[in-house]
Every structure is written in C-alpha cells, then in structure tokens.
C-alpha cells in the first residue's frame, strides 16, 4: 500500500489568536486529515479551529541558504525601532 501523504496541522488555541503549527500527520485526503488532526492534536481542548495543509504544498527555505537568507539582517541595527524617544505615559507601544 502506498503511504498516505503528509499533512501539516495548524491549530488556533482560542478566538483572537493565530493558527499555530502543531505537527504533522498522514491521511489519504483533506477530510480525513482534518479528522485525524482533531483526534491527535485537540484531545485536551487545545483548539477551536484546525487547518490542514498538504506538506507538499509548502515551499520552505533551505538550510543551505541560511547564510545568505538570514545573516545579512544581523548587523542592521537601524531596522530595529530603538532610536525613538518614548514619551512618558505611553503604555502600549
């Protein structure tokens, strides 16, 4: 039997929060992937909404490209908004 395809699972813990990646699973199709995700990842009331995405549909950055992708950001301190004076009394910034 050919192995079932892999699906990535995202769960929204509660209303107002984003869906977060929680793991992956095997399922023959999307409907069953959703149900398997329900059984595997929301057994203890971890969520109110589930997304499943075929793992094959995800384009990921390659570990080999780590240097060119991410390192150039390391010395660009001016990208961090740390040079502003924060006025007194501002609570949510």
């Amino acid at each position: 039997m050919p192995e079932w395809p892999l699906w990535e699972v995202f769960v929204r813990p509660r209303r107002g929060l984003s869906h977060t990646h929680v793991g992956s699973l095997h399922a023959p199709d999307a409907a069953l992937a959703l149900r398997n995700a329900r059984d595997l990842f929301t057994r203890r009331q971890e969520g109110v909404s589930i997304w499943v995405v075929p793992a094959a549909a995800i384009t990921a950055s390659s570990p080999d490209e780590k240097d060119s992708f991410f390192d150039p950001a390391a010395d660009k301190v001016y990208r961090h908004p740390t040079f502003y004076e924060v006025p007194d009394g501002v609570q949510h910034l």
Partner: protein
Amino acid sequence: MSGFGFVLGLGDDALVAAQRLAQWCARAPELEEDVALANIALDQLGAARLLLGYAGELEGEGRDEDALAYLRTDREYRNVLLVELPDRDFAVLMAKLLFLSAWQRLRYEDLAAGDDERLAGIAAKAVKESAYHLDHSALWTVRLGDGTDESHARMQRAVDEVWPYTHELLAEAPHLRANWLSTVDGVLAEATLRRPDDGWRPGGGRDGRHTEALSYLLAEMQVLHRAYPGARW
C-alpha cells in the same frame, strides 16, 4: 425510571463495542487511524461505565460497573449480536460502526429527551460522541465503497454480512427505524453500495444467546480481573 435489563443492554452494547474497537489499536492501516479508533473505543467505554454503574444501582444488589463488566458470563451479557461480531476486515469494522453509531445517535437523542433524568444526562453526553463516530465511519464507508474495485467489493461484502444483524438493533425502538434507514441509505448511496435485501434476522443477544465470538472477547477482557480480583494500577 428505566429497568435494570434495559440499561444493562445499552451498557453492554457500548462495552462490547469498546472492546472490539480497542482490538484494532496498533492494527489499523496507519498510526492515525489507530488513534482515531482508540478514541472512539474510549468514548464507548465512557458511556458503558456510566450505563453499567446506573444499571447496578437500579438492580440494587450491590454490583458496581466492575462487577457487571468483569464478573458476568457470556450468557449474562445483554448486548446485541452486531457489536460482538469479529472484525475480520477493516471494512467489517466500518460497516458495524456505521450501523451502530447511526443507531446510537438516534437512540441517545431519544433518551436525552426522556423522563429518566439520570439516563437523559448520560445520553446527552454520548450523543455528540455518536455523531462523531457516525461521521468517521461514514467517511470511511464512502472511501472504501467508492474506491478501488477491491475496496468496493470488500465494503459491499461487509455491508451484506452485517446487515442481517441490524434488525435486532432496530427492533427495540421501531419508531426510529425510518430515520436510521435514511441516514444509512444516504451513506450507502454516496459509497455506491447496495443496501442488502431484508431476509435472515438473527437475534437473541438481549436474552443472553450469543455467538461464540463473545466468549473469546470476554475471556480476554476479564482474564486479569479473574486472575487477580480487584487488581489496580
């Protein structure tokens, strides 16, 4: 107020179904299905515990859920034959679960609105679980029925084999039969499966007359308690 025998029958249906489902753990086609079936088994077990506990109180002879589950012989079990049938094939498991969960959902819905408050409480909790069991078995029935030639043939064979045993299930509450048939017919049609003709109607489970499959099932389920009475971990 319900009778001891009636509640015992409902509890035994759930308990024997739970034990059969649990036998699939680590034997399903994929790990994910192992977990799904174990979840369903635990739902059934949860309902069985509540029902048997209540049955014991109705009987009033001091038997608790464990005494009823572990210390009765096959002749004292009151489950319908359908739940004890061996699952020789994954398709047989799904046919049984489809027929049973479609029935339990209607039955529990009915009882949840009934006069017996204790039973209504148990049923109200179980009805959502039954809806999920129905969803799971319906999805699989459709995928196998409307799948390959091989899966279609095996799913049809399973439906044919299990169908006669649904009569015993339905006999207890004939007013739910039409509703049950429309649910099951819908799934079978989507699965491109044929509903078998009504013919042979095996029964007797509610009177303690079972197939030999139940004896093996109980032997495995009860062996620990009989060897080490009251064992805990």
